[in-house]
């Protein structure tokens, strides 16, 4: 077979090829390729990105902003002046929707990402150390799960948190409260998953190779619960958006003058028949937002999951019969 010390032209050529990096493809590229192969997921991503961009720069397409009242058009339907009509206060609905979408996406992304991050760190730490640490941390977790989140949100955003309310805008307060109550389920899941991963042969192999514990957690544990993390992030974002809508709807979330999709929907529900555009416009945007995230879910999982059947477009063949 091969002699390790032999130098032959083929090996030199091989080396040059390796140097030029066309043999070793980076994993990120493989993941991107796999994701792009899933049409639904790409559509979802496109919708989500468009909505985000719109929410950020949407204001420049309209001369109205979310505070200016148009006294001549109060509660009017869509017209050439106001693209999506106006609210009962006479504020341009387009401007309100753009602002509301931005707040909703912000809440969703921050809560989704940060809560999964907290959950991952907490869960992995529990699993890695085990023993007493695990027991104490698990107790804290259980205690948090028992707390009635709804009441705390109600108290924090209205009466009880007066001092806080003056210093913080209501959306930030909602983010903090949602964060505190959002990560426990995921943390438990991650703990049990990493505990079973710790028993796997490849973790043992890494230990026997003398890889330090920190690196094992980072390189073997976290990526292997990665598809779950990705799913949980998208699900967490969706969940946070919906929670915000729900809380605002019953009047304990975002407070006027701050606007969010939930506030808009909540305000419009009582007069759906008279002012339908006020209800349907923010609702459609919310559907697009959560729907695009759901569409991305599948593709993301496939891209990160090595056991997915996605092995290359060349091999894909549809059943003919």
């Amino acid at each position, binding site marked *: 077979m091969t002699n390790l010390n032999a130098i032959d032209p083929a090996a030199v050529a091989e080396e040059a090829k*390796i140097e030029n990096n066309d043999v070793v493809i980076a994993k990120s590229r493989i993941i991107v390729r796999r994701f792009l192969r899933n049409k639904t997921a790409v559509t979802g991503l496109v919708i989500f990105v468009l909505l985000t961009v719109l929410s950020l720069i949407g204001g420049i397409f309209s001369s109205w902003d979310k505070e200016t009242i148009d006294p001549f058009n109060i509660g009017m339907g869509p017209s050439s002046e106001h693209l999506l009509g106006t609210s009962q206060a006479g504020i341009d609905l387009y401007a309100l929707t753009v602002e509301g979408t931005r707040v909703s996406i912000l809440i969703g992304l921050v809560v989704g990402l940060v809560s999964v991050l907290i959950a991952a760190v907490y869960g992995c730490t529990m699993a890695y150390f085990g023993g007493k640490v695990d027991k104490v941390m698990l107790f804290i977790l259980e205690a948090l799960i028992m707390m009635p989140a709804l009441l705390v949100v109600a108290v924090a955003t209205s009466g009880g948190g007066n001092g806080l309310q003056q210093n913080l805008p209501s959306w930030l307060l909602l983010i903090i409260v949602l964060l505190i109550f959002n990560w426990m389920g995921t943390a438990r899941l991650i703990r049990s998953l990493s505990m079973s991963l710790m028993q796997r042969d490849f973790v043992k192999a890494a230990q026997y190779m003398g890889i330090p514990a920190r690196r094992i957690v980072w390189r073997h544990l976290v990526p292997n619960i990665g598809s779950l993390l990705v799913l949980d992030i998208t699900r967490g974002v969706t969940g946070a958006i919906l929670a915000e809508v729900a809380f605002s709807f019953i009047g304990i979330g975002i407070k006027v003058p701050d606007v969010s999709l939930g506030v808009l929907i909540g305000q419009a529900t009582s007069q759906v028949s008279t002012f339908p555009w006020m209800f349907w416009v923010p609702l459609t945007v919310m559907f697009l937002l959560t729907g695009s995230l759901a569409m991305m879910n599948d593709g993301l999982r496939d891209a990160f999951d090595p056991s997915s059947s996605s092995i290359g477009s060349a091999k894909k063949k549809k*059943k*003919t019969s």
Partner: protein
Amino acid sequence: MSSETTATDLSTAERLHVAGLHSAHGHYSDAPAGAVLSVRDLNVRFNTENGVVHAVRGVDFDLMPGKTLGIVGESGSGKSVTSMAIMGLLPETAEVTGSVRLKGQELLGLSDKAMCRYRGNEMAMVFQDPLSSLTPVYTVGNQIIEALTVHNPTMSKQAKEARAVELLGMVGIPSPKDRLKAFPHEFSGGMRQRVMIAIAIANNPRVLIADEPTTALDVTIQAQVLEVLHTAQEETGAAVVMITHDLGVVAGMADDIMVMYAGKPVETGSVDDIYYNPRMPYTMGLLGAVPRVDVAEKTSLVPIEGIPPNLIHAPTGCSFAPRCPLVSDACLQGEPALAPVGGTGDGTLEHRAACIKSEDLGADVDVHQIFHAPEVPVSRFDAVPRAERKAVLELTDVKKHFPLMKGALLKRRIGTVKAVDGLSFDIREGECFSIVGESGCGKTTTLLEIMEFHRDQDGEVKIGGLSNKAASDAKTKAAMRKELQMVFQDPTGALDPRFTVYEVLAEPLENSGMAKPAIRKRIMELMELVGLQPDHVNRFPNQFSGGQRQRIGIARALAVNPKLVVLDEPVSALDVSVQAGVINLLDLLRAELGLSYLMVAHDLSVVRHISNRVAVMYLGKIVEIGDVDNVFDNPRHPYTRALLSAIPVPDPQLERTRERIILQGDLPSPLDAPTGCNFATRCPVFAALPAAKQEKCLTLEPPLETATAPAPATGRPADGPPSAPTDQQFACFYPDGELDADMLVVHESL
């Protein structure tokens, strides 16, 4: 199951076959009278995401009453699907065509309800995994009685119970009457498989299908279960279809063999025809790929390169052509049919082979030449006497005891499990040392103790001069990890599914602080070293076959240039043909790189093939240790003798005549290990000893004694002067004692 969809692309003859299926009494004229089961042109197709998989392509055979047919092949060759199709156990989505006749009655096309009259009654099946084929919530008696009730509704309760006791007794379960009320978890794996056999033969079936019945069991237990199957067949006169990948298992049992490849039988014939006069390259390769436990002479194994074809695409030529060393253009012109090759004709099945070159192949052709088996590699250390080589690993009195606790709040110690109990051995440079024994004897714990390398361990572990007692700080540990690497049993579990091969191999190198360009170069070297294509480094492990994954595991272990590689059952998860390639690779690497191996294996044939020295372990202790040829050819400890005799040899004639020691019972739980000799409870020598001598075995622990070379009187020429001390040590007071006659089994009647 409509035939229209397939009939369009079938030939006229095949269409007639399909049509014959639907006529109620259409006869296949070639079915011999008296055949209890005849299968004709059995085809199974599965619809999958990727297309239609043609899993079984035209299987024909006849089974005479009381005879045994062995179906042999690699995984994925369609052997299990064939048996499932016969039993009617395939899912409804599977498309089954052809004919299966049980005593002249057509079974294909029967409804599930109609099949139930045959299943468990006329036809019964024994499954591979005894642990999951019994319902855990019902007693064993219940499950046997259930099988009786279904097919004999009029039988009285007493009669059923009596029959259940009789059945349990027949399969060799001690005190069957009490065990009737036991739950499956109270039985060991071997016992559960016996219960499965009891259920299968409950209604005196005419056909018994055994699908890899012993694959999940230890060798000693395998011998027991095969024995039970044999008695069951004798008692009921049933015909047996034995499905296995182990050519050794069927050699002693089967009358006829059918070798399957890619869903098609490629060679059929009597046992002797197949084993002594194979006419198809695949069969020859399979036979050459199996290491022999009874042969000392070193030859390389025959590797069959490549993987079985994808059955989604209909093969245009011979399906074995891509892997066949004798392939020529003619092989690619159409698939060869099974043609008679004129064997001895003493079996039910005519000797047929599906190869256009079968004329040129025969008993006198050397399979090693055909398959280009590599030369036996010679290590530079082989010439150096063992005593002069450096020790790479030394174990002195290593112990691992687990306390057994009971109680919820206040835990109290109720006993100790002595998983490893005072182990001492050493491994020299360039040598392969193996530990063998049944599962539960402490082999793997020993490995883990070595890998652990901690100061607080009981006993001293010395790796390449570094002792675990002296200094076990991070620096010494890192140095030790460079000397010692491990290859795991399950190649799939040992590779992080999220790492590409490149990342898998880069990990140990990065950890040792190598620069990036150097790592790339080293990885390309490693890929080539273990026989993989270097441009496969971007693939994920699940895109490789089992054998290739194990090669990646080996490459990872070799990445940091260790001196000693620990192999934990390195080939037990692999197919026979693939196994041969990996064993050859391990052999080659040992010679080329001057490696030492510490191997744990339960397959003694593999151990014999690859090792220089061997230790036999029983309940945490070494009972015999020494040079592999000495130990295997001249075993002194009764346990070693029993282990060796339990291994089936792929040689039908030898298998029929040799005497076997069938050990009674299972490995005792380490919790209630006996005080004297651990093995006394199962020892065939002990059982035959007079009571006065038994006392010694029960009270004293036999120490390891150095064996002397066998006296010439035993018929074996001694290498040195008689009674010179050898390398071999064993722990038994009466190594030359008589064996208990009850535990000896000889099949001369076959």
